[in-house]
């Protein structure tokens, strides 16, 4: 577990290069800064200045080494490294609100941008015109698209939106790819088709009135693409399995809402959000249950010292309780909400290291998967 503080401002978004030696991040302004790891230090090597508004999404394609960025200026740029300099290419998204998130497809021949215009732009490169063109997925999205994740087959796309639903769309572009084979989510996949939709209109299982209570902040497909997890603003995390979408397993947690989620094995997820520490969830496919697996940010054990009588009365005065647990400051490494998680090593099937960035301008990365599946830190409510 290690923590590096980049800035005093929030990190809006980040993305790693293929060998994890460089990180591109937006320091809450119109630019993208690229830092390179040098021993234990991080050195800024590039500044990408082109956007006219805050950069809300960055994705670094590992194989083709291109970076796509999108921002509140309603534009997206694809950056290519020419020699020592990153050169941008504008992509016209045809949206009239800010872009919120961007993601390269697994084969890196297209990317998807979610925006406040209530639509998703799927962009691909047209060879004849030497230009990026985009197609829109509009129906039935009713509000801002907050998060996106591609299925490994390069066609299906999961989108979490402010209209309280998580959906799986087909983003099949016949100009750049072959017709996809059937998956557990369906077999007919024309462009823009909705193969799955969560929420009250879809049947919900799990606890209480189930899914559909809050904005869907984060979505993630599992490594195989058969499972889809999403976190919602009503402090729930839910998992749906393709083919068995009539039962959605969800867990209403006791914590503040989670903003980002990622599978780290086929059965477990790590998620983080307004509580400032990453947590583990374990999914049991046979029982269809999601259970809390423990906090992944083990705080330093401060020595237990007795509480004096004076402190007891002060606590009583200040907090109406003379309990000994003084939560003076946050014990977690991050001191503010975590907004993004990225898997560093091992992929989504056997993640051994992941990284989180947040509003405190710092980045934390954690090692060791075996403890995720075997040890459970006790969670006190």
């Amino acid at each position, binding site marked *: 577990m290690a923590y590096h503080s980049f800035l005093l401002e929030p990190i809006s978004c980040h993305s790693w290069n293929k060998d994890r030696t460089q990180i591109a991040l937006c320091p809450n302004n119109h630019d993208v800064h690229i830092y390179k790891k040098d021993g234990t230090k991080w050195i800024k090597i590039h500044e990408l200045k082109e956007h006219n508004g805050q950069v809300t999404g960055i994705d670094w394609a590992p194989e083709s080494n291109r970076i796509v960025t999108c921002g509140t200026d309603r534009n997206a740029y694809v950056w290519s490294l020419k020699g020592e300099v990153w050169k941008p290419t504008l992509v016209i998204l045809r949206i009239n609100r800010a872009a919120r998130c961007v993601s390269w497809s697994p084969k890196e021949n297209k990317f998807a941008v979610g925006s406040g215009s209530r639509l998703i732009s799927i962009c691909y490169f047209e060879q004849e015109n030497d230009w990026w063109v985009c197609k829109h997925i509009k129906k039935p999205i009713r509000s801002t698209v907050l998060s996106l994740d591609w299925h490994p087959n390069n066609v299906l796309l999961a989108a979490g939106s402010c209209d309280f639903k998580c959906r799986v769309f087909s983003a099949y572009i016949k100009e750049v790819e072959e017709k996809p084979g059937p998956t557990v989510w369906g077999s007919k996949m024309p462009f823009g088709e909705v193969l799955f939709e969560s929420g009250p209109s879809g049947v919900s299982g799990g606890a209480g009135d189930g899914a559909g209570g809050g904005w869907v902040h984060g979505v993630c497909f599992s490594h195989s693409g058969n499972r889809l997890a999403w976190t919602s*603003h*009503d402090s*729930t995390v839910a998992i749906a399995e393709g083919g068995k979408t009539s039962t959605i397993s969800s867990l209403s*947690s006791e*914590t*503040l*809402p989670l903003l980002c989620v990622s599978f780290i094995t086929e059965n477990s997820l790590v998620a983080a959000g307004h509580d400032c520490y990453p947590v583990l969830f374990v999914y049991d496919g046979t029982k269809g249950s999601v259970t809390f697996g423990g906090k992944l940010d083990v705080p330093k054990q401060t020595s237990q010292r007795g509480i004096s009588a004076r402190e007891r009365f002060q606590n009583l005065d200040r907090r109406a309780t003379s309990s000994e647990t003084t939560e003076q400051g946050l014990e977690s490494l991050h001191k503010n909400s975590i907004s993004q998680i990225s898997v560093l090593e091992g992929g989504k099937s056997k993640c051994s290291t992941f990284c989180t960035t947040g509003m405190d301008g710092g980045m934390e990365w954690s090692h060791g998967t075996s403890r995720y599946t075997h040890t459970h830190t006790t969670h006190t409510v």
Partner: protein
Amino acid sequence: MAKNTLSSRFRKLDIDEFDENKFVDDHDEAVDNQGPDGTEIENLIRIGDTMTAFHLALRNPPLNTKNPAVKERALAIVLRVLTSFKSSDIEPAVKSLDRSGVDLLMKYIYRGFEKPSDNSSAILLQWHEKAFAVGGLGSIVRVLTARKTV
């Protein structure tokens, strides 16, 4: 000055009503719970069986209806039960609920806070403390984000 700046009648117009893409809540009123049964609960309270009254009161919450009278009635019944509890009985009652029960209880507690009466705030605060201990911040977040309110 131009003539159109004199009248401010345009300010009374809600232009979101005219937006074609306006978000219309697709709430179905189909399965409508009428709320708990008042008389039976009164009887149970009178004989002192507050625990059963409590469970009965939390059944059939009128979440789907848009009729405020039904909701008011249900709220009054639940508050009657909550205020008839002794402080020491609150914790076991909360522990006997499952996760969705705790969320529902939290919703009623916050509704009860909205209109404080003589002693209701004190007992409701005790209920809140016990429910919070079980449900955590998540249960309060679910009260705030719930689309279907009690």
